[in-house]
């Protein structure tokens, strides 16, 4: 996807409740990517020019894993803020706002597309 082009993907809503760990509120996953990063190094993206934010690691039994986030997910929105064209630092900031307890993510993964296609194929659209 190049900048400025519209695209449509199947997304999943994931709501993660932040966990208080000492002085910090943590979500339990790591992100990689951003428009200032090198997209060729991303192991999770299909298109190696995709500069979106991807989930690179999920800590075991953290709030992200329990909410249904999986490794390799691409984060499209956080609390309504777009995450497809942000720098790495901007992404980090939007996820770690101290005054928010809950982050609502829109994520996409490849298996979602296939699941929708499969389900649409078996059931006719009403």
């Amino acid at each position: 996807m190049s900048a400025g082009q519209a695209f449509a993907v199947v997304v999943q809503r994931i709501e993660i409740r932040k966990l208080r760990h000492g002085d910090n509120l943590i979500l339990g996953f790591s992100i990689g990517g951003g428009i200032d990063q090198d997209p060729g190094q991303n192991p999770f993206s299909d298109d190696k020019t995709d500069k979106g934010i991807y989930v690179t690691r999920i800590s075991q039994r953290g709030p992200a894993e329990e909410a249904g986030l999986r490794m390799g997910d691409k984060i499209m929105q956080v609390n309504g803020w777009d995450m497809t064209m942000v720098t790495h630092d901007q992404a980090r900031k939007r996820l770690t706002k101290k005054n928010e307890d809950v982050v609502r993510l829109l994520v996409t993964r490849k298996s979602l597309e296939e699941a929708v296609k499969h389900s649409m194929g078996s059931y006719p659209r009403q």
Partner: protein
Amino acid sequence: MGPVMSCVTENTPQSANILTRSLFLLLLLGVFPSEALLFLSVMTNYLSLALSLSFLFLPPFCTNSLFLFFSSSPPQASKIDSLRSKVDLLRLPLALSTKSISNRKSQLGVVWEKGGGGGSWAGGARKPRPPPASDMDNESMYSGYSYKSSHSRSSRKHRDKRDRHRGKSRDSSIRGDKSVTIQAPGEPLLDAESTRGDDRDDNWGETTTVVTGTSVDSVSNEDLTRMSKDLEDSSPLECRRYLSPALGAVLGLFALVTPLAFLALPQLLWRDTLEPCGTPCEGLYISLAFKLLILLISTWALFLRSPRATLPRFFIFRCLLLALVFLFVASYWLFYGVRVLEPRETDYRGIVGYAASLVDALLFIQYLALVLLEVRHLQPAFCLKVVRTTDGASRFYNVGHLSIQRAAVWVLDQYYSDFPVYNPALLNLPKSILSKKMSAFKVYNLGEENSTNNSTGQSRTMIAAAARRRDNSHNEYYYEEAEVERRVRKRKARLVVAVEEAFTHIKRHQDEDATASSPKHPREVMDPREAAQAIFAPMARAMQKYLRATRQQSYHSMESIINHLQFCVTHNMSPKAFLERYLSPGPTLQYLDTTRGRQWTLVSEEPVTAALRQGQVFSLRRLDFSLVVTVAPLPFLRLGEEFIDPKRHKFVMKLQSETSV
């Protein structure tokens, strides 16, 4: 043209009439087709013809057709008859029958009526287009071969630019597939002497060391045919190729002497009545002298070279230039004769100016010659692909705008130094692979087919069976190739080692050693030949085995190897430098002895004086192989520009960071 001519006859006085008509006649004879010797005979009769025709011009010239002009009055017909008889005496080739002469006349008449003069005759650079060649086809079949003998001595590549005009439009009027010859000086590849030497000495490798077996080489049939081919190869009658340069030199000398004659004749004939002319004349003398000197030097530099090739057809540009020179000089003489000699002109300064203008015109013609003959073809326009038919060796060359025959000569020049020598022994697959006999399948038809299907069905099944059987031959070929390569490499290793060891046996004798070593023991001092013979013995066997393995033994005799060894020893070459001649097949030129000519045949579908075009194909044939040349144009290049500020070269590190949230 008729109305133009009639205007000319009405309005101008008689002398100018004669002048213009003679000039038109010159143009006619000079530019339109005529046979070489026909023209020669015309030239020899020129002066008488010019004078007689000048009286005959007046009444018949008012008609439109030159044909009528030629046949209208008896004295003119007798002129033509006398020309014809002269032509027969000189024994022209087949195509010059009476039918062809009448064709010529009708062609001349037709072109004249079409307004072939057109007023641009003064330029002379326009090539006349003959009428469509359909009526000339009946003589095209003869012309290609029969003209080989007459044209081969009349067209040269680098001869003197001033020569007799040849019938150059003949070339374009004849179409059809023809083969004509190009002869290039050189020698047959396999010298008759060297093959004979080979037959005698081919077991020299064995006799110098240990006799292991008998040599199997003898004078085979191949050698005999090769020797006979070499004898056919050499170009016959060497003096013929100098005939037309000689004629050109005569014309050139005539042109150079003309200004001096212009100056000298008044002084000799009517010196008393000449007006004296002082300083302006002297200035003109000086300029005349220097211009003549420059003409001489540049003619020597550019055109006086021995011809390197004989072309099958006329070299059009050269013919054009010679015609131009001839026209200029002849018209100047005509004008001089009419205006100066007859009335005994007294204005000497005018005469000197006239001579100076002739020299100027000659200088400009030489400039034109330089551009047409030497400069125009330098800018590359086409890419020629040359492929040898026997072994596929190919090269690409860039040439400029040339005619086919000139391009062929150029390609042959490059061929002799670029292409590896053609070795017929290297070509064939071993017989064991190719000649797999089809097994004798006996095919029985089961009685349902009728007899007409019988033979085809049988052969088809046999071919199918044979095709299935031949599946293994590539395998054999592969292993055979690997085996041969291994053998060659082994022998090459042995050869290299033997040569290196042999070279360590001698060293160069310094003069200061002489006094040091002579009291102890006199070392034998050898000249290069003896040194070469001394160290040849240990390497001889390895050398011979290697040459046999690479099938080069016919190109190198023992004598030639010792000569080469002597050469290398004299020039302090290393063993590797000595061996480079044998390890890779060199260009053909290396094996030539350039005293005899090489005969090549140019095979082309278009007339060989046509210019190169995209997609043309012609081939140059020798006795046992040929070179196929394909013409492709060089692409048009659109060159754009892009400016990069050196300060804009900047780099950043690639970031891959991972943040945990």
